[in-house]
């Protein structure tokens, strides 16, 4: 007890106990520092099964034999001198496409713009991509989500969503497939398997 007569020493003890109590409370109420029971050590599945904003090409290349993405032009930074920049596409990082090289991408054009007709009635005599028409083909992601969050391009808004669509009866696992990027709403995008997309467009035009 003689040691505690020195107020500086006593202060160290009290600070230590106070911090310990605070840290313990913080650990109990906050996010955990780590989790356990992970059994996935393959890099492409560990990432692909997550809800990462960049992993659309990886999710697809994990599922199909090879994947080609078209109309995925995306400039994440706003070009200098542009006033009131608008969202034009969604982030598809070329490095991720190249690293997991079962995927390739064509960055020539921005996603096809179907915003004006996405909710239009199918009887409209235009190329119509209806919500009802494509929703049944939406695939649930390995992360358990219906849609994934992606970067908007350019990054003037931070939350864009992306859905993946294909017809499991027509397009099989281990096929070589092509996906078309389509803009459905202001900040909602879709990657639709090419033959399904063509079918939907054709059906809508004849409706």
């Amino acid at each position: 007890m003689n040691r505690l007569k020195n107020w500086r020493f006593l202060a160290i003890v009290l600070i230590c106990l106070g911090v310990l109590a605070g840290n313990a409370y913080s650990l109990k109420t906050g996010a955990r520092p780590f989790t356990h029971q992970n059994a996935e050590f393959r890099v492409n599945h560990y990432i692909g099964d997550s809800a990462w904003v960049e992993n659309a090409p990886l999710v697809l290349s994990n599922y199909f034999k090879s994947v080609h993405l078209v109309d995925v032009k995306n400039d994440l930074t706003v070009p200098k001198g542009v006033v009131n920049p608008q969202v034009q596409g969604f982030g598809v990082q070329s490095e991720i496409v190249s690293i997991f090289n079962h995927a390739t991408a064509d960055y020539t054009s921005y996603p096809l713009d179907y915003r004006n007709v996405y909710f239009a009635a199918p009887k409209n005599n235009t190329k119509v991509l209806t919500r009802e028409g494509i929703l049944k083909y939406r695939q649930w992601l390995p992360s358990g989500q219906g849609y994934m969050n992606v970067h908007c391009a350019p990054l003037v808004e931070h939350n864009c969503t992306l859905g993946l669509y294909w017809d499991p009866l027509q397009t099989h696992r281990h096929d070589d497939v092509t996906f078309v990027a389509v803009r459905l709403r202001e900040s909602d995008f879709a990657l639709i398997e090419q033959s399904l997309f063509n079918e939907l467009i054709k059906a809508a035009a004849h409706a």
Partner: protein
Amino acid sequence: MLNEILVLTLIAVGSVSGAWLIGARSTLLAIPTGLLLASTARILIFSTCNMFSLREYSAGAFYVLLAGTIVVAALKARVGLYRPVIVAVAAGLLGVFATRILGIIGTRHGDSYWILAVSHLMQKSGDMNILDGHTPLKRGFAYPLLLALGPQDQWLTGMTPYIFFAMVCALAWVVWELVKSQPRSRTYFVGAVLVLVGFTATMPLRAIFYINGHTLFAVGLIITVGVSVLALRDKVLSNAHLVALCAGVYVATSTRAEGIAIMAIAILPVISLRFVSRYKAAIVIASLTTSFAIWQATYNSYLIPNGMPWVVFMMILVGAGLLPIIKWFDWLRFRIFFIGFIGLLVVFAAAEVKWHSDFSRGHRALVYNLFFNFSTKSLGSGGWGLMFAGLALLLLLALFSRWSPEFRYLLMISVMLVVGSLISKMLDGGQFGHPDLGRVGWSDSLNRMWIQTFGIFVITVAVGLIQNEKIWQRLGAKNKGE
């Protein structure tokens, strides 16, 4: 898993053997120094193989080098090497057990996925030129290269906790060396206090398994600063310490994007010492610049001006770095630590004045992350609990005494690391046209950067407390002679 056990055991034994051969004999120094040497060797072998498009042989060549090092060390050391080897292997196996058997995994984060993606590319010997953009560049070089040594299509899961263990060893070694003339009971008491204060918050615990280069950076930084301060105190920089310091500088520089800036600050004390020869100072600076240049060249970085051969880029960088050691600039070299200290404060103050309104969100984030979130009424949103508040209070207690030269240097370095980290963050945001100081949340890059530097703050507080006679006044009679 067997593959992982064998690789991590080889790295543990080989790296400790390498450290032993350069003269790092104590276990606490041999483990972090060995890791830094192994990481340096891995970078150099991979980069060389990449130059000749022989990347697929880089892992094999690295293993051969480790095996050769073990053989040479075994022949020379005979029995003197067993303790660091046993400790290092045990730490490696514990890491494998925790990650592969218990399935412990760090908090999921986008940066971790990027790093794993880059390590995947390295493992399958893919074309490194695709990493030329700023996003992969920000994920670093040294750490993904170590992870890429895992089993096919997997990463080396046990490496991350092993690096954390090496960081703890480095921290303990520096404290021990700096206060070994003090009564041991003080060291044990302060050590216990700082373990409880520093390693019970979420972020230090998260760092054990979190897939990112912060802890590897911390190993390099702690060894660099520790060796510098020991050199200042002892007025000598031994060859073993010089090699450890250079490996620390080399690895930390190529581990994180801000590495070159932070490590440039960290080497200022050692190159400003008068008794450090021009030759040794040149090696230290070249460790910094060659590391950065080789990394940029291997990644075909956009920072290398278009059309400029990487060798020219490296020569310009290394040449510019060596300017302060020319004899004409001795007046600058011997004062560079103090000039750097003042310079950093001036730059930071000027930036604060110019972008004050842009930084207001960042100021709030700093307080919310490190101390208390007044919006949610919760302790530090950055996951630091009361750790920084506790360290600040303990530092206050340590300050009211006569400062030893090493404590004064540690204080200055701590201030410079804080300011340097803030400036790095400003530059990171500034390259996108919006300089800022971060946002609320543990994953903010500035908040994560404190993982790299908090070890130095802990060392500073430890040295200050242990050397402060006023704290131990009424205990003196009992402790003397221990």
